[in-house]
C-alpha cells in the first residue's frame, strides 16, 4: 500500500536539491570590517597605516621594565652584566635569547592596534623587516588612492620610501649585506633572495632615501598634507630626516669597514664620502635656513631630557633632527639604572671607562697627554671640557640636593660597591641631579629622557669627516663655505671649547684623529661609539678592547689605572652573525665570516 503523493514528494525534494543547491551553501563568509580598499583609498586611513612604520623605529633609550643597554663600545663598562656584546658572545643577542640589547627581543613593550602587537618589541632585526613590509605594501597601493591631494600622495610615498631604506639600513649597520626587499612578498612567493654585498644594498638604500628626501616636506606645518595636524607634526618624517640618514648611510658606506666588506679594501671610499659631504651640506643648508639649529650649551640638556615639568616631552630641540617616536609613559623606571643606588636608583650598571674620560680635552683645547694642555694628573678632573662635567658623575659630584649627598666614587666608596660603578665614574647624560627619591624630580610624570638618533651636531661631524678625507681639513664640499675644521669648531665652540689647535689641522691624518675624538666626546653615550669603532675598522685594536677604571682613595692621594674589562673583539665580531635558522634556509644567503 503506497501513496503516490509520497513518492512525488520525495522525488520533488530530491530534484530540487540537485538543481538548486551546490556549493553556495558553504559560500558564506564573515563580513570584513575593514577592507583593503578602506585602508588605501583615502589619505586619512592610508596615513594611519603608514604611521605604524614609526612604531618599528627602535628607541635605544626606551625600555620600561629593564635598563636599556645600548652603549657597547670602549666607552662604557657593563658591571653587572658580564655577557653579550662585550664578551663577544653574539649568539644569544641575535637569537633573541637575551633581553638586554636592542638588536633582538628587546624589552620594549609592544605597540598594539586592536589587540595585536604591530611592533613586537623584538628589536632591530624583527621590527625592521616588519617596517620594510609596511613600506612596500604602502608603496604598492599608491595607485589606489582616490581621496588625496598630490601633496598628500607625495608624503605617503616619501614616508614609505624612507622606511624601506631606513629599515634596511638598521639591519645592514650591524649585519652587513642583506637581501634588499623592494616588494611586499606574497605568501606564495619563493623567498630565496640572495644577499647583496654591502655597497649593492647601500646603493638601494641611498636611492630610496634620496627619493624620499625629494618627496617629504621640510616642515609639515607649512605643507598642505600637514594642515590636519597643524601644530602636532613634530616627529613626522621630513626632508631633513631623510637627508640626515642619507648622510649617515653614505658616510658609513664609505668608511673602512663597509668599504672593505664590499670591495676588500679596508679604507675610506672617496666616492661615497664625496656624496656624504654633499648630502651633509644639504642638511647644513637647512640649518642655515633656520630649520635646525644647535642648542646653546646652557640648555644642552634639552637634547636628552626634560626636567622639572610634568609630562614634558624630552629632547625637544631644533638640533634634534631625527628622534625615535616618543611614548611618554614612563619616567623613573627607565632612567634609574643611572641613578646611584643610595638615592633610590638601581646602580651604575653602565660605568664610563677611563678610556672615554681621557678623550675629554682640557679647557684650553688640547688632549690631556699634550704637555701644553695644563692637565694635572693629581687633579685629573680639573679644567676639562665642559662636556665632561655634563656627561660624567665624578667623585664628589652632588647626587641629591635636598638631602645633600655627593658621589663617593673612590675605591670602596658607596658608589663603587658591588654592582655599581667599576670605573670610578657614573654616567649622567640622561639624568638630572634631582632625579632621586629625596628630591623627587622623577615623580609625577617628570623626568623623561631620550636618545637622539641623529642630531645636527653629528651632521657637522659627518661633514667634517667626509670633507677631511676627500678635500682635507681645510677643504669644503663643492659649493659649500664650511671647511672640515670649521665644522668641528662649531661643535667645540658651542660647548665653550676653543678651536682645534692648529697643530692638528695640518694633515687629514692628524685631523682625522681629532674628529674621531670629537665624536667620542660630543656623542658620548648616544649609542654611536661601538659603530664608529667598527666602521673605522679599529675595534679589534687592543686600545679599544682594554677598558680602564681608576682606583683612588678618598683623599685622591694617588690615581691608579687598572684594566677592569677586556672586550672580546676579533675580526669576526665586526658583523653580527645572522640568526642561524635564517641563513640555513637556502643557499645564497651566507653566514657572516667567522660565525
Amino acid at each position, binding site marked *: 500500500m503506497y501513496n503516490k503523493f509520497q513518492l512525488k514528494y520525495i522525488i520533488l525534494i530530491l530534484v530540487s536539491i540537485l538543481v538548486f543547491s551546490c556549493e553556495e551553501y558553504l559560500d558564506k563568509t564573515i563580513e570584513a570590517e575593514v577592507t583593503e580598499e578602506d585602508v588605501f583609498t583615502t589619505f586619512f586611513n592610508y596615513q594611519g597605516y603608514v604611521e605604524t612604520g614609526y612604531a618599528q623605529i627602535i628607541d635605544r633609550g626606551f625600555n620600561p621594565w629593564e635598563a636599556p643597554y645600548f652603549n657597547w663600545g670602549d666607552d662604557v663598562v657593563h658591571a653587572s652584566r658580564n655577557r653579550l656584546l662585550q664578551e663577544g*658572545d653574539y649568539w644569544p643577542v641575535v637569537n633573541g635569547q637575551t633581553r638586554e640589547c636592542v638588536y633582538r627581543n628587546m624589552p620594549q613593550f609592544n605597540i598594539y592596534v586592536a589587540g595585536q602587537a604591530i611592533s613586537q618589541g623584538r628589536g632591530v632585526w624583527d621590527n625592521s623587516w616588519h617596517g620594510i613590509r609596511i613600506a612596500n605594501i604602502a608603496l604598492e597601493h599608491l595607485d589606489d588612492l582616490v581621496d588625496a591631494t598630490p601633496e598628500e600622495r607625495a608624503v605617503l610615498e616619501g614616508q614609505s620610501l624612507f622606511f624601506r631604506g631606513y629599515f634596511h639600513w638598521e639591519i645592514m649597520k650591524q649585519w652587513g649585506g642583506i637581501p634588499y626587499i623592494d616588494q611586499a612578498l606574497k605568501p606564495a612567493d619563493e623567498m630565496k633572495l640572495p644577499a647583496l654585498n654591502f655597497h649593492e644594498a647601500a646603493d638601494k638604500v641611498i636611492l630610496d632615501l634620496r627619493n624620499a628626501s625629494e618627496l617629504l616636506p621640510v616642515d609639515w606645518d607649512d605643507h598642505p598634507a600637514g594642515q590636519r595636524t597643524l601644530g*602636532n607634526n613634530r616627529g613626522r618624517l621630513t626632508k631633513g630626516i631623510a637627508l640626515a640618514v642619507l648622510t649617515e648611510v653614505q658616510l658609513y658606506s664609505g668608511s673602512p669597514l663597509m668599504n672593505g666588506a664590499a670591495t676588500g679594501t679596508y679604507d675610506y671610499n672617496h666616492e661615497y664620502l664625496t656624496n656624504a659631504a654633499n648630502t651633509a651640506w644639504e642638511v647644513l643648508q637647512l640649518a642655515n635656513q633656520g630649520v635646525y639649529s644647535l642648542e646653546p650649551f646652557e640648555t644642552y640638556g634639552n637634547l636628552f631630557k626634560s626636567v622639572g615639568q610634568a609630562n614634558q*616631552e624630552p629632547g625637544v630641540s631644533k638640533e634634534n633632527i631625527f628622534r625615535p617616536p616618543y*611614548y611618554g609613559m614612563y619616567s623613573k623606571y627607565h632612567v634609574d639604572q643611572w641613578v646611584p643606588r643610595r638615592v633610590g636608583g638601581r646602580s651604575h650598571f653602565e660605568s664610563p671607562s677611563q678610556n672615554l674620560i681621557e678623550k675629554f680635552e682640557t679647557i684650553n683645547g688640547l688632549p690631556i697627554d699634550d704637555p701644553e694642555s695644563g692637565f694635572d694628573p693629581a687633579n685629573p678632573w680639573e679644567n676639562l671640557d665642559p662636556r665632561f662635567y655634563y656627561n660624567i658623575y665624578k667623585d664628589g659630584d652632588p647626587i641629591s640636593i635636598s638631602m645633600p649627598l655627593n658621589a663617593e666614587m673612590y675605591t670602596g666608596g658607596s658608589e663603587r660597591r658591588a654592582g655599581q660603578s667599576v670605573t670610578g665614574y657614573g654616567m649622567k647624560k640622561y639624568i638630572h641631579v634631582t632625579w632621586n627619591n629625596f628630591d623627587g624630580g622623577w615623580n609625577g610624570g617628570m623626568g623623561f629622557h631620550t636618545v637622539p638618533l641623529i642630531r645636527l651636531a653629528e651632521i657637522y661631524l659627518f661633514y667634517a669627516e667626509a670633507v677631511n678625507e676627500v678635500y682635507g681639513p681645510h677643504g669644503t664640499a663643492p659649493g659649500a663655505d664650511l671647511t672640515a675644521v670649521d665644522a668641528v669648531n662649531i661643535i667645540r665652540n658651542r660647548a665653550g671649547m676653543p678651536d682645534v689647535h692648529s697643530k692638528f689641522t695640518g694633515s687629514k691624518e692628524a685631523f682625522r684623529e681629532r674628529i674621531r675624538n670629537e665624536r667620542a666626546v660630543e656623542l658620548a653615550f648616544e649609542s654611536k661609539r661601538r659603530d664608529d669603532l667598527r666602521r673605522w675598522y679599529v675595534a679589534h685594536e687592543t686600545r679599544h678592547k682594554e677598558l680602564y677604571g681608576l682606583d683612588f682613595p678618598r683623599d685622591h692621594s694617588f690615581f691608579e689605572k687598572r684594566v677592569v674589562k677586556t672586550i672580546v673583539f676579533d675580526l669576526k665580531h665586526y658583523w653580527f652573525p645572522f640568526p642561524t635558522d635564517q641563513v640555513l634556509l637556502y643557499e645564497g644567503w651566507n653566514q657572516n665570516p667567522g660565525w
Partner: protein
Amino acid sequence: MMKNRDFQSFLRKDLFLILIRMKLILFFSIFLIFTASAADQQQERREITGKVIDNGGIGIPGVSIIVKGTAIGAVSDFDGNFRLLVPTDADTLVFSFVGMSTQEVSISETNSVSVTMEEETIGLEDVVVVGYGIQKKESVVGAITTADAEVLEKRGGTVNLGNALSGQLPGVTVMSRTGEPGREDPLILIRGQSTWNNASPLILVDGIERRMNDINVSEVESVSVLKDASATAVFGVRGANGVILITTKRGAKGKPKLSLTASNTFKTVSKISTMAEAYTAKSWKNAGIAHEVSTNEASWAYFMPTEQIENYKIPQKYPELYPNIYWPDVMLKDFTTDQQVTLNVSGGNDLTRYFASVGYTHEGDIFKSGENDVKGYNTSYSYDRINFRGNLDFDLTSSTVFSVNLSGYTGIKSGANIFYPGWVYSSVYNLAPDIYVPQYSDGMYGFLPGNTNPPNVLAVLKEAGVAKENRGFIGSDFKLLQNLDFVTEGLSVDGRISFDNYFGSVGPNIIDGGNQGQTMFKHIDPSILSAVTAADSSAAISYFYPNGALPVNDYDWILRPWRVNPESPTSGALRRSIFYQLSLNYDRNFGLHDITGLLLFSRRKDASGANFPSYQEDWVGRITYGYNDKYLLEVNGAYNGSEKFGPGYRFGFFPSVAAGWMVSNEEFLNHLEWLTKLKIRGSAGMVGSDAGIPRWGYLDSWITGDDRVLRFGTVGQAYFGSNDGYFSGTWDPRSMYSIYKAFREGTIANPDINWETAFKKNIGIELSLFENLFALEADYFHDTRDNIFMTSDRRNIPDYFGASPVPANIGETKTSGIELDATHRYKITNNLGYWVRLSLTRAQDVILKAEDPEGFPAYQKTEGFAIGQTKTQIRSDIATNWDDVYAQTSLENNQYKLPGDWDIIDFNGDGIISTYDNIPYGFPNNRPQNTYSSFLGVDYKNFSFMIQFYGVTNITQVIKPNNDTPKLEPQSNLSELSVDYWHSSNPDAAFKAPRVGTSSPIGEYYHYDGSFLRLKTAEISYSLSKALLSHIGLSNLRVYVNGNDLLFWSDLPFDNERGSLDQNLAYPKLKHINIGIDVSF
C-alpha cells in the same frame, strides 16, 4: 510476514532477509511448477500441531514454519500455536523468526512439537555498521573493527566511553591522562598519527557528528571503527583521521524487557612519584651548597647546621617546627567510590518499538576533600551525570518507518574553587616535605611566610569554596524511511533531520576567600624553642589572613560569609546544530549478483556561542557488488568539502575502491572441512582532513583600532607632540595619539589553503579455522598524507617576509603499520570453555616533508623522524675530577662546571654545548607506536572469568617534577628521582652532584621509556541459570566483580599514558574495582 518486518532487524539483516526472500520466491515458483505438473498426484498428509515459545515460556506469534525442502508452511498465532498439514514423508520443520536463530526440528516420529526459540546472539556479529549504513560482515571489504555492547560492558564502571575502548580494538590507541572526575576525556588515535594537526578521529553517534565522552556506555549497541580509505572515504574531507561510529540500542518487537545494571566502584591511586623525606632533602641541599660554594659563595648563607637537620629525622621531636610531611597521606584518601545505575526498557509491538534508558553516574574524589561541616559546602572533586535516551520506531505504513531518537545528558563537575587546580593535583608529588605543617594541632593551617603561592593546598580543599561546571546535551533525531519496492524492488529512501544542543555553564560557585581559602594561617618558626620572653615567642609566630578574613587580633578573626556566584553560561560551550540528510538506498540480488547502492546528501549548520555559524555539505555515493558471495567489490565516493577553504578549494571528490575475495567459498576448497573462512581484502583511496585548520585563512583582512581599544589597553603608537613640548591638555592618553587611526594587516591570506589529503592503502586477511576454533584477522596499512597544514609557527621562511609566516599546506608524512587480532575459542566440555585473544597494533609514521631549513643537518630536521620525536641533549659520564671537568666541552652560557657534573655530548662537534646538540632520542613523546592487548577468558558453568593485559611500547615520556631539586629558598623539594646523587664516595650514583644555587645540565635524565604493561581488566561474573531465573520471573541476572587498570608495570615513575607531566591534568590516575549486578526482566 514481511509486512510486519521489524525495523531493527531490517537494519541488521536486510541483505540477509532479502536474500532469503528471493530464495523463497524462487523455491515457491519452482514448487508451483512442480506441484502444478503433479497436481493430480494426491498426497498423503498429516497434521502437525505445536507451540513456539521464547525462553521465558511465552508464546511467540508470527513465527514462520516451513516444511524443509518445500513451500508448505504456516505462521504461529498470537499465542505461539500453530497447526500445519504436511506430507507424510516430511521429516523436518524449519522455524524462523526475526532476531531468533532458525531451528530445524524433526517430525519424523511425532505430530506435536514444542519449540523454544533462542535469541539470535551471533546475529549481531553478522552485520557491521559502516559509514551511512550497515553491511553484512561477510561482504565488508574495508578495514573495520567493532566492539559490541557485551565487550563494552566488561568495562563495567567505566564512566567514559572513550576509556572503555582502550585496548579493545586493534588500530585504536586510547591515551588517558587524568583521573579527574568528569575530565577523563582520553585522546584517541586511529592507526597512529599522520599529521601534527588535530589527529582525532571523526566521531558520529547514530550517524551524526557528536561528542562521545558523556554517552552512557550502557546505551551503546556497538562501536565501529573505520580505518581504511574504503570505510572512511564517504566522510570525505573529515575522514582522514579515521571514524568512530557509535550506534545506540533500539527496541525489538516483543514484550517489554527491563534491565537494570548497577555497579559500585572502588578507586585507589595508581603509581605516583613523590618527594623525598625532609631529612634526605635537607642533607642533599647541604651537600649541594658545600659542593658549589667555590662557584657561588652566596649559597653558603643557606647551609643548614647539622643539628637542625637532625630535627627532621624520624621520630621527630618537634614535628610542627621541623615538619616532614608526606603529602600523599595528607591529601589522598585510601580509596573512593563511584556509582552507576542504568535502567533500560525495550520492546515493541506491530506498530511501535522502543528503547528507553535512564542512567545515573557519580564519580568520587580521591582527594581528602569533602563536606565542610562548619561552612556547609562540599569541595569534593566529583562528577554527577544523568543520561537519558528514548529511541522509538513507528511503522506508519507497511513500508514506512518513522524513527525518533531523543537523548541527552546533564553533568555537574564539582570541586574546590581554586584558580589553578593543578596546585592541588600536583601537591602529592610536587610539594616539599618541609614546606609547612598542613594543619597545626590547634586546627590552624600552616603556611610559609613570604610564600603563599601555591597556597596551603589542604586549606584550599577545605576552605576555598566550590567551583561547579555544568554541561549538558539534548539531541533529537527524526527519521523517515520509505521502502520504494513499488518503484523498483530493493529501493528505499530515507530522510532525517536532527537538532543538537550542547550547553555548558559554570556555577553556582561558592566564593570563599579566593585561591587561599578563607581561613587563618599560622607559621611557627623553630626559633620559638629558644624564646625567653613572651615577646620572643610571639615574634616566632606569624599569621596570614587571606582575602576575606578580617582579623580582630592575632588570635581572633571574623570570617566573612561566603558568597555565591550565580550560574553563568560558558559561551563557547553553547553549541547548536541542525543536520538534515536524504538518502536513496538500493539493495537487490539478481541470482548470484548482489548489488547495493547509496546516494546521500546531507547538510549541517553549527553555531557555537556568538560565532559565525559554520556549514557543511556532503554528497556521498557508494556501489557494492558481490558475485556469488565470493567476489566483492565496493566503490565509494564523497563529494564534499569544507567552508574553511576558499572558492576553488571548497569542494573535493574523495574516491575509494575496495575488493574482497572470499576464498573459502570457492568450490575447489569445499572439501577443506577445517577451513571455515578465508577472506582476502584490499582497499585504496583518498580521504581528507580539515581538522585543526582555522577558518577564514583564505581571506585577507585589515584591522584598525577603535576608541575603546585606545582607552583600555593600547599603549601607544607613534607620538607626535605639539610644538611646545607638552602633551596637549589633560593627561588623557588619547591625546598622545595621532589623529590617524592605525591600521594593520590582519590575516594575510593564503587563497590556496586546502585540506590535508591522505592516500590510504590497506590489505587484510580474515581467517577462521575449525568453526572459529582459531580466528585471525590481520591488516597491513600504508598511508601517505600530503598537503599537511603548517601553522605559522611551524613554517620556516625568511624573516624578511616581514610578518608572521602564512600558514600553508606543505607537509607530507607516511604512516604504515600492521594490526593483528587472533582469537582461539575452545569448549572443552559443555560446562567449561575458554577463549584467548591477542591483538596488537603497530603504527609508525615518518615526516617526509616539513619545510625544514635546507641547511640543517639531518639530525636537526624534523623530516625523517616521527611526529613528536623526542629530542634532547645526551649526557655521558659524570666528571669525577677536575681533569674530567677541563676535558668536557664548555657550555653555551659560561656556567661554572664542577666535578660531579654530567658531560654532555657535543654532538655537532662545534666545541660548545648548545641547543644544536639536542638530538633525536627514543621515540615520540605523545603516543606509543605499538600497543598490544591479550585476553584470556574462561567460562565454567555459570561462572565467567576474563582478564586483559594492555601494554604499549615505543614512547618516550619526560617526567620531571616541577621542582625536582631543592633551591635556595627555605623549603626543600627533592624528587625521589634525584636522591641518589654523585659524590666522590658514591661514584656510581644515578644523579649528578647536587647543585642548589647554580645549575648544571641534566641531558636526557627524566626522559623515560614510556612503555608500560597494565592489567587492564579482570572480571569474574556469575550468571544465574535460566531455569532458576524463570522461576523468579527474571530473564537474566549477572553479578560481577571486575577491575580496571589494576596493576601497572613500567619504568615510569608516574602512571601517565602520554607525553609529559601536565600539572593541570595531573589528577592521579586511579585503579578501579567494580562490583556490579545486571538484572533483566
